[in-house]
């Protein structure tokens, strides 16, 4: 029914409509206390908003840039070139017998998905404060959309990686099935950190200043420019506490086959990812009610 039609309805017709319509949904608003469970039904109901916010981020990202989506290729490829020169050629960092550029790129691509998703989601609530303080919707949608929009750049960069494979005459192993797992792990680790930081950023804007520093620091704790096998075995467990260590290892497994010791590393990292993710989710839900007042 359109509003213009309604205006001409008689009272009797309105009454009929009122009586014949399905029962209304009931919403109860009351102050929440402590931990708030996740409302999956509501999230599902708002799935289109998730789609539109992701789509908005994508559409806006390369607006008014001369190179557009080429940036998704330029960044990892240039970093790869720099790494290959300094770490591969000059410092002679080992690369598990894989040509160094290919090795570096295979680490950089999941890393950039992670770094992008982490940065975007951490800033997401503050960046969208005009929405958060003016409209109701499940707040989780915001960091979620920020993370998802990183997948497009990732896909483009992934094609470049495949081209590199062809150039180097490498045949991907059947372990390729590990790649989807690696992507899922990347998204979850970015989301885990993003949930924590986006919520903290609302209250403490200091967070946004630590993010560039954090991602840089974190990159060196992750086996991107060097193989995880470089880490002495006795420190491997500590090293695996970094979720991204296992993720990159998992990604390389999918591309080059299994390396020694990677299974335990991936196992430990995955556990850390889940721990951080559910922790972040719980924290986010607990504090999201203050977003509209603080953002």
């Amino acid at each position, binding site marked *: 029914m359109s509003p213009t039609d309604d*205006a001409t309805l008689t009272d009797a017709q309105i009454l009929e409509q009122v009586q014949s319509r399905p029962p209304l949904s009931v919403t109860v608003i009351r*102050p929440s206390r402590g931990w708030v469970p996740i409302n999956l039904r509501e999230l599902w109901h708002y799935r289109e908003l998730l*789609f539109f916010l992701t789509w908005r981020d994508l559409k*806006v990202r390369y607006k008014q840039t001369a190179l557009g989506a080429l940036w998704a290729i330029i960044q990892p490829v240039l970093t790869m070139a720099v790494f290959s020169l300094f770490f591969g050629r000059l410092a002679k960092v080992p690369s598990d017998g894989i040509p160094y550029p290919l090795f570096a790129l295979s680490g950089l691509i999941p890393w950039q998905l992670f770094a992008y998703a982490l940065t975007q989601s951490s800033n997401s609530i503050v960046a969208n404060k005009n929405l958060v303080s003016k409209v*109701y919707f499940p707040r989780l949608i915001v960091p979620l959309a920020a993370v998802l929009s990183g997948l497009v750049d990732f896909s483009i960069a992934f094609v470049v990686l495949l081209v590199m494979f062809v150039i180097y005459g490498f045949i991907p192993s059947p372990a390729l099935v590990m790649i989807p797992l690696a992507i899922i792990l990347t998204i979850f680790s970015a989301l885990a950190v993003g949930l924590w930081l986006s919520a903290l950023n609302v209250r403490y804007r200091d967070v946004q200043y630590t993010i560039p520093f954090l991602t840089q620091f974190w990159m060196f704790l992750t086996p991107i420019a060097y193989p995880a096998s470089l880490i002495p075995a006795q420190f491997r467990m500590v090293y695996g506490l970094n979720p991204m260590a296992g993720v990159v290892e998992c990604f390389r497994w999918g591309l080059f086959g299994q390396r020694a010791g990677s299974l335990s590393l991936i196992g430990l990292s995955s556990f850390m990812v889940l721990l951080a993710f559910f922790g972040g989710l719980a924290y986010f839900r607990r504090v999201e009610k203050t977003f509209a*007042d603080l953002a």
Partner: protein
Amino acid sequence: MSVAIRATGISKRYRLGRRERYGSLRESLTRFFSNPFAASKAPPPEEIWALKDVAFEIQERQAVGLIGRNGAGKSTLLKVLSRITEPSTGEVVIHGRVGSLLEVGTGFHPELSGRDNIFLNGALLGMKRQEIRRKFDEIVAFAEIEKFLDTPVKHYSSGMYMRLAFAVAAHLEPEILLVDEVLAVGDAAFQRKCLGKMEDVAHSGRTVVFVSHNMGAVNSLCSRAIWVDKGQVREEGPAQQIVSRYLESVREGFEIGNAKPDDKLIFERVLLKNRAGEVTTSFRGDEEILVEIHYTARQKIPKPHFIVAVMGPYGELFTAAMTFDDLAPDAIEGAGVIGCRFKPFLLLPATYTIVIAARGADGVSNLTASRYDAAFFSVGGLMSEYGFPAPGADAQVANVNALVVPYQWEMPDGSVRAPRLRSS
């Protein structure tokens, strides 16, 4: 008839001193811009209750106006009803899907085209893609932007922007619609159109909760009204009756009163008077405005420095401060009145807020807390009446800080052109 919204014991507490912000952007800007003379403000109270024990019922298919002065808690109440912010105590039970229209244009992205923004904004307001597609043409036609559908909205005029934003929101079909001050947008013709649309909605059997300072709109749209004052429901009843009671109370002056026990001075109330000496809240842009502060000095106060400032939509416009002009009275004691007569050259149509403050003989210490929303008044009329004939001037005026001083343009060819500003 059954109940659409039942609120019981709703309170909302904000803690000050932490970074909690409340109210609209305009209010925070007001606070921000008035900081210069709030420099020596006494430490703020630990917490304030924006709403305190609010209870009411709204019947299905009723249009209800929420009225009250700035800072009374109307917007907070609407935010609680629309689940943007949680109440500190109390409970609201809502029967039906809620759509809220809290600020027109929320979520518009300047880089995206009109078409894209319709979908994005629709999704934000809780519409399904199918629903938006079905209403798409209607929305575009209502907003009158057919030719600019694929232009990024950053290139839109503010009038087009507002029209589009309102059009999307107005085509939402929730059972309960919450509306905050949307009619204060666009040119007069579009305002009438919006009002018409709101009337359709209000008369189409949907429940509408409508916050406005525009008493005419409340009267014509709403059957009932709830008057919110100092975070509480002061009165509720038939719209006509409540609106006239409210206007009466404003005509008697803006009550302030509440001072801290150790304040030396109490601001009792503020009256705004025109040249004829009549108390009013609506002025013409070129009219004199007398701000009368009725105070009580609890003890003899030597050299009290009064400050009166007028804030436009985007911040402070002009100030009269005894801390600058050194014209403080020698001493005051007991009840009294101090007036400040402004003669602005030209104020454009908008709503203005009066800020008042009082400092001691040193010009620094506060005699009582400064009031950032001591009173408000509106300037009416069309831009053309003030010497601004350009089409669209009425739409643009919402986006400028509206104090005009005489000026002239000096053209490339050396000629001079000046607007024929109306000034009495």
